[in-house]
């Protein structure tokens, strides 16, 4: 039974984790502002990353990335996977002494209950993630096993999927009651919520993690989508912490007296895709795709259009599983790009539709798209630009659907690899070729047998070392042949808070907006 070497560190209980630091009761209150709002407060009903902003404050998972993104046991005291290559069994030993906000102790039944709800498509939108799980076995109050039908690398990559939800409390108050008064094990207890306006939380005194816990009593999260208004709220002192400092104001915020800022990668990966699977399309030729990779000065775009709020990456971002520092993105070289186009048989370039997302899902994504298309035009790939708002953009990108005509040109797209990041699922969606009905390549414009084989193998690789090696191999192959699109940048978000606020940033859950450790200087 091969112990998880990479996670050996995780198996050891972290030093000092359980040492009972003297937790004096937190006092005072703090108001923060988010640009976007989590929709649901029930982890099983989670639909997109933004939901983490709220769920991440009140609920917890078995494992999570630590302060420098290394896997850290959280609600799990220890866990191991046996027979990872044949019939894997995940055994988890729960941490003792953990209680829910209403005082109920955390037991294996709670996780079985969470598992049952995550499997049910009527409740969860991620039921397909439990597809490979055969059964859930409760060994005792603090130990349970998950038996897999076949190896499932993704299950491990996404922090063992399960969120702690109080079974007895849920069954007593029912779904309706639970959404009105949610209970979890997290550092923050639910107080009240007004959709589109604010979420009020209170520090949970009985929180199990004495070392990493909030140092302020009341927290109010305001929702202010309009950048200008959010900045005004911060400057006028109405709020003490904001996320999403507009890129154009980051320099100014860095110089503001009494204000601290933090610029971190948001976990989303942006790229430009093109129909390389279509034989009659110019993008079927690798030289044309390489020409695209050379044609755009992404560094200049990041500096001016994004005000430095972006980080170049080649296939896998820094800190993500399988990051290969030796794999460099294509350099900006207009002469090389034109030469490649000539060799590919397009001496005077060609016309193509270019689809740009106009809704700011990431800051300045529209302006970035316009800039990229302008650079392509400079080397001869002349764009007929069409702007699409989010709903239309998603509908256009999807493969194998009825409705608007198939995407037939250059498309500005994005696919989050989460934090710290694991490319397996995204590659399954846009590197693997599109296979109707199988769930592979739902947004893919690539058809390459070798890439397909490697991605399918990655799906079933649970052994961390093998997983990292395979990711590096796929990344190199993907980069050299510019498959699954050309990777441009990973957006960087900037948070800002006043000196009086003590804030230690945790990446996940909440994509840096988790207030695991926040307080007021005494």
């Amino acid at each position, binding site marked *: 039974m091969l112990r998880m070497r990479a996670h050996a560190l995780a198996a050891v209980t972290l030093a000092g984790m359980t040492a009972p630091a003297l937790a004096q009761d937190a006092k005072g209150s703090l108001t923060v502002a988010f640009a976007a709002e989590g929709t649901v407060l029930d982890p099983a009903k989670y639909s997109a990353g933004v939901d983490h902003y709220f769920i991440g404050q009140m609920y917890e998972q078995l494992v999570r990335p630590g302060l420098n993104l290394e896997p850290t046991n959280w609600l799990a005291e220890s866990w191991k996977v046996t027979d990872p290559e044949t019939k894997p069994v995940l055994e988890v030993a729960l941490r003792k002494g953990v209680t829910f906000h209403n005082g109920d102790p955390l037991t294996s039944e709670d996780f079985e209950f969470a598992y049952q709800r995550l499997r049910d*498509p009527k409740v969860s*939108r991620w039921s*397909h993630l439990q597809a490979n799980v055969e059964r859930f076995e409760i060994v005792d109050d603090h130990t349970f096993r998950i038996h897999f039908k076949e190896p499932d690398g993704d299950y491990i990559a996404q922090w063992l999927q399960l969120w702690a939800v109080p079974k007895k409390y849920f069954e007593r108050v029912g779904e309706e009651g639970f959404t009105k008064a949610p209970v979890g094990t997290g550092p923050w207890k639910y107080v009240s919520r007004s959709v589109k306006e604010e979420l009020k939380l209170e520090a949970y005194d009985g929180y199990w993690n004495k070392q990493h816990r909030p140092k302020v009593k009341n927290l109010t999260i305001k929702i202010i989508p309009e950048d200008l208004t959010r900045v005004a709220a911060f400057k006028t002192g109405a709020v003490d912490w904001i996320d999403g400092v507009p890129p154009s104001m980051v320099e100014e915020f860095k110089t503001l007296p009494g204000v601290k800022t933090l610029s971190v990668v948001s976990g989303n990966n942006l790229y430009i895709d093109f129909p390389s699977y279509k034989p009659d399309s110019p993008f079927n030729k690798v030289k044309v795709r390489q020409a695209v990779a050379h044609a755009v000065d992404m560094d200049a775009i990041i500096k001016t259009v994004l005000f430095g709020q972006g980080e170049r990456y080649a296939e896998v971002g820094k800190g993500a599983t399988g990051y290969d520092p030796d794999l460099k993105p294509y350099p900006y070289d207009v002469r090389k790009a034109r030469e490649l186009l000539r060799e590919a048989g397009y001496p005077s370039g060609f016309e193509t539709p270019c689809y740009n997302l106009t809704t700011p899902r990431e800051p300045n994504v529209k302006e970035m798209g316009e800039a990229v298309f302008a650079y392509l035009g400079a080397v001869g790939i002349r764009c007929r630009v069409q702007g699409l708002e989010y709903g239309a953009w998603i509908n256009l990108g*999807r493969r194998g659907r009825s409705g608007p005509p198939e995407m037939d040109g250059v498309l500005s797209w994005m696919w989050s690899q989460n934090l710290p990041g694991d490319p397996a699922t995204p590659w*399954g*969606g846009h590197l693997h070729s599109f296979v*109707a009905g199988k769930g592979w390549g*739902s947004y893919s414009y690539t058809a390459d047998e070798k890439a397909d084989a490697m991605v399918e193998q990655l799906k079933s690789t649970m052994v961390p070392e093998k997983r990292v090696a395979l990711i590096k191999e796929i990344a190199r192959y993907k980069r050299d042949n510019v498959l699954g699109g050309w990777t441009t940048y990973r957006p960087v978000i900037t948070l800002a808070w006043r000196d009086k606020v003590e804030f230690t940033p945790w990446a996940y859950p909440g994509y840096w907006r988790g207030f695991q450790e926040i307080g007021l200087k005494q």
Partner: protein
Amino acid sequence: MVGFVGKRVLHGLVSIVGASILIFVISRLSGDPIVLMLPVEAPPHVIEAMRRNLGLDLPLWRQYLIFAGHALTGDFGMSYRWQTPALDLVLDRLPATIELAVAGLVFSVCLAVPLGVLSAVHRGSWIDTVGKGFAMLGQAMPGFWVGLLLILVFSIRLNWLPAFGHGGISHLIMPAIALGWYPVAAQTRIVRSAMLDVLESDYIRMGRALGAPERVLVWKYAFRNAAVPLVTMLGVYFASMLGGAFVIEVIFAWPGLGRTVVEAVFSRDFPVVQAGVLFTSILFVTCNLLVDLSYGLIDPRIRRDG
């Protein structure tokens, strides 16, 4: 009186039902919501299951009948995005929009009435031109632009007013200005020309002949007559306030129904779009009815033969 009310209520109901059908059909055509709800990597069978689950695979007319049936019992379906009953979402947000629309209307009337009266009393003088100019300016500037400039000046630079959120009066000032300035020109014009007529009337000259001070004549006896035509139009202006609120709420982070519907349209959240627009039109129809009934209060002649 009853016949008149009955007919109006019937018309209102027809409008509301018609509006619900119109919005139901149009929103259904605005693309597939399932793809926006499920994660990008959800497999096709999960998508099909969700579509069946939500009944989106049924023919359009059957979907409407189901929707209408449920709506009558108060069930407007679950919001695709918020996964809470759409009705709760809408009813939570409706008061904020009403508050903003009323504030906008109050601002515009409080501006249009004095402007209209003064420019009528001092016809041709500089007050007349300045008044009209100020009112015309409002009609020439998009509300959202006014909002942005107000935030820039009063919130960021001068830090007098909170730039966002919902709370006391201070939160209402800028949104009300941004929303209310637009119809001021039209309202001023109505009050001004009504006032011009009234000031030349016999009963005003009679009042003057009896020694009434000019102030009493203008602001008591003349004004109430001039207010009648404006009141008749209040219903229409309240509707334009509701319409305008959509953009203003987005800028001022105002937790109103407008912003909810705007976001629901972008995320193809049909239940919320339907419930939101339906309640806005119910609001509009009721307030029109109230304005019609309120004629009697202002204009006694209506009471007798109304």
